[in-house]
């Protein structure tokens, strides 16, 4: 009789996870930094021009280049940039000549609020629709739910936003057209963001839950007299949790990116619109900071899902305990 294997539990697992996650984040930071090497045009020239208010002279450009440390070799610049990034110092925006770090910090709150609201809504709706899709009889209702879920994931988010603004704001006057102020201004952006998330999630819930409910232990649970709600809650959902969690995390992480579009449509001063403006004006420091924060958030969300999955399902820990 063997004891439960210790290696797959507790500290070792978490440490392994943390190490792996740090590796991924670090790799991403290299890619993010490399953007500056990719960039067409010279950041020094752009910043010098921003400061001068017009095209800068070669001397001005050179001065900025030295000031920004752009004359150092790439690895040194990466190290400096990463060290700065860890303390929230991402340099100066080429567009506004203001510290990128504080600009990002100001806007991060807006984006996080939006993501949190849509994540909760999306997950709740997605789970509900997904469970319904798994247990409902084949028929009109199930088909409609499934088609609806697929549809909202297929419509371009910005177009969906236009249509919703047209109907709910301009025609019906129920909600404001744009902006970020009182609670009513949150309804539309959250709805637009939550719909695709719920759509994807509900599909996965429906499929994995149905699969889980086909497992022998579900028949065994029936054999010992358990009812359907109990089976869905105890045997179905927990066993479907792996894929559901990863898809939910992926969807929530994806929200971080969808905010790019939704903030643009609804005029929210969040990190997404900051990223778009940085990309539109090749403001590389701002681009790097926004990419690092949004990408890092995305990766962390997904990794946390892995972590939680490992805690729920002892078997999957082995993956991290190689």
């Amino acid at each position, binding site marked *: 009789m*063997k004891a*439960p294997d210790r290696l797959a539990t507790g500290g070792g697992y978490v440490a392994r996870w943390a190490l792996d996650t740090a590796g*991924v984040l670090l790799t991403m930071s290299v890619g*993010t930094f490399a*953007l500056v090497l*990719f*960039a*067409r045009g010279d950041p020094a020239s752009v910043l010098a021009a921003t400061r001068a208010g017009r095209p800068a002279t070669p001397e001005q450009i050179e001065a900025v280049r030295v000031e920004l440390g752009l004359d150092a070799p790439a690895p040194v610049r990466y190290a400096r940039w990463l060290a700065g990034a860890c303390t929230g110092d991402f340099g100066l925006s080429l567009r506004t000549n203001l510290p990128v770090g504080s600009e990002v910090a100001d806007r991060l709150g807006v984006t996080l609020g939006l993501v949190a609201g849509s994540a909760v809504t999306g997950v709740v709706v997605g789970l509900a629709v997904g469970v319904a899709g*798994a*247990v*409902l*009889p*084949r028929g009109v209702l199930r088909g409609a739910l499934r088609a609806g879920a*697929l549809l909202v*994931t*297929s*419509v*371009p988010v910005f*177009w969906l936003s*236009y*249509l919703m603004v047209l109907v709910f704001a301009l025609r019906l006057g129920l909600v404001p057209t744009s902006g970020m102020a009182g609670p009513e201004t949150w309804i539309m952006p959250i709805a637009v963001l939550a719909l695709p998330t719920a759509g994807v999630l509900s*599909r996965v819930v429906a*499929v994995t839950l*149905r699969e889980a*409910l*086909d497992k*022998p*232990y579900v*028949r*065994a*649970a*029936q*054999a*010992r*007299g358990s009812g359907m709600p*109990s089976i869905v809650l105890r*045997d179905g959902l*927990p*066993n479907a*949790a792996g894929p559901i969690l990863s898809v939910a995390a992926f969807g929530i992480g*994806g929200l*971080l*990116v969808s905010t*790019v*579009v939704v903030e*643009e449509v609804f005029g929210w001063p969040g990190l997404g619109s900051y*990223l*778009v403006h940085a*990309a*539109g004006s*090749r403001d*590389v420091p701002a*681009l790097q900071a926004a*990419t690092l924060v949004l*990408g890092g958030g*995305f990766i962390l969300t997904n*990794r946390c899902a892995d972590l939680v999955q490992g805690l729920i*399902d*002892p*078997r999957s820990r082995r993956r991290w305990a190689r």
Partner: protein
Amino acid sequence: MNGLLHRPGARTALIAVPLVLFAVAGGLAPLLAPADPGVGDLAASLRPPSPQHPLGTDQLGRDQLSRLLYGARISMTITAAVLAISLAIGAVVGATVGYLGGWADWVVARVIDVVVSLPGMLVALAVIGARGPGVESLVLALSLWSWAPYARIARARVAGMRGSPHMDALRLLGAGRVRIIGRHLLPPALAPCLVYASTDVGTIVLGVATLSFLGLGVAPPHAEWGQMLIEGQPFLGSAWWLAYPPGIAVTAVVFASNLLGERLASGEEAPSLLRLAFPGRIRRAARSARPAVVAEPAAVQDSVLVVRDLSVAYPGDGGLRRVAAGISYEVRRGQVLALVGETGSGKTTAALAPFGLLDPRAVVTGSAMLGARELVGPVPRERRRVGVVFQDGAAALNPLRTIGAHIDEAVRNAGRGGRRGATRRVTEELLGTAGLPDPAMVAHWFPHQLSGGMRQRAQIAMALAGEPELLVADEPTSALDVTVQAQLLDLLAGLRDELDMAMVVVSHDLAVVARLADSVAVVYAGRIVESGPLETLIKAPDHPYTRGLLDAVPRPGTAPGTRFRTMPGRSGIGPDDTAGCGFAPRCAFATPACTTERPVLEPLDPSAAHRSACLRHPSTSTTTDGTC
């Protein structure tokens, strides 16, 4: 037409229609478009649809239909370019590192992990932000992240094949790495990649449109769909022909791609849980089609379970297909009935059907009385008076819950629970009864931490929680080694005697049966072909199939090395697949009549305990006795 729609292939093809239209529109845009998409008559600005302009004109007087068609061309070109690049890079990189293994594999796997865990739109935004907009930037940006899933898929596929004997053989034959990868590994790796690509089409089309919305996509005057949507936005309320068609086009293509990908990835739709959730409704539907049952003589008084003329059918291509027919058996208190047959003979179906424990699509007819209650039909079944032990303990136990949690639930379901502590005490007692040492500790373990034998004991403990009158055990020992098998059989035998329980044991192994059973029913092709007391059946088997089964059992006393005989032919046919005796094609005694006339179970002795369904009855006719 209706029938056509129900064929899975036809449906998949139907789903792909928007994608085909997309490809045709893209490929043939120059031929199909009624006008030049870039040139318009400014005087004909914002005209509604007309015969000349089927989708109207835009602000610059350009023909909207032509722009839509050329838009398909642009989206398709970019999608094709991105797919070609990422498929090529992904498949080659994935297959190569998957084959080579080692540090290269480790590094590439890490890179794939990172790229896959990045949101694609963010990568695209960052790359375009750094490089500036344009078609090349767009293709580069989209390819940069979309290659990774292909690499991951190809890598996994190839890694699975690397160690196969086929590869060893190739290496022995002196095939080079390039040849092995290129000729033997890439093609199979490409297949799953192509399935994934069907979803990727939608992702890319959507991505291109979204980037255009952000001003980072395709430059005008090219009529790109996302660009057209933005141009159409101010006209949402006034000129629908500008605002809606491009949006509908994007949505249709992405929708079709998602749906197709989902279908291809999952194969056929998973069986519906509908019957699991709403058993009553289905049974009612099934009952209407129930044939008249010839009532058999009333069962003996102390019968726990009496099954009469039970049939099970599954919906298939041409309507219902029966997998078991005319099954009748009974079990008495304190007795063990064994259902014996080869894999696929229908013995498990015969054992589980009365309790609704089959696949939810199964349609069960006939009668099964547990005591005085009819189990087949719309009445809620009283399951807790029956305990079930499944074949594969690992599958029958929820891997996420401890053994204790399983049994606690069963105890509570049986109404025996109380407070947490009280329930757990019953649980531990049951674990002890099932012969598990240190029940308190075992209760805290997860199924994967138990050995196979312990899992079966845990299942037995669970089955006993409801203090059942009847225990159904489906191949309870098939996956266990001989010693454990014996212990488990002893446990079951002990329980029967101690608790005076009735048992139905399903097994393909007569040796197992011989150790435990009081009576035996032999199942072949979904029908019972012979039944009777254990002794009789072993000593004087009548049906050639029973004989075959007995011959297949290694008996004590045979000389070591003697090959026990196996029956020729295949098993797994259904009860209605032949007009005559299902066993006739494999039977050494078969006469032409055997293939046309179906034998019925006939009593072979005055008490009618021993019955056999054979036209020849080899045990009574003392003619040729085969070639034992």
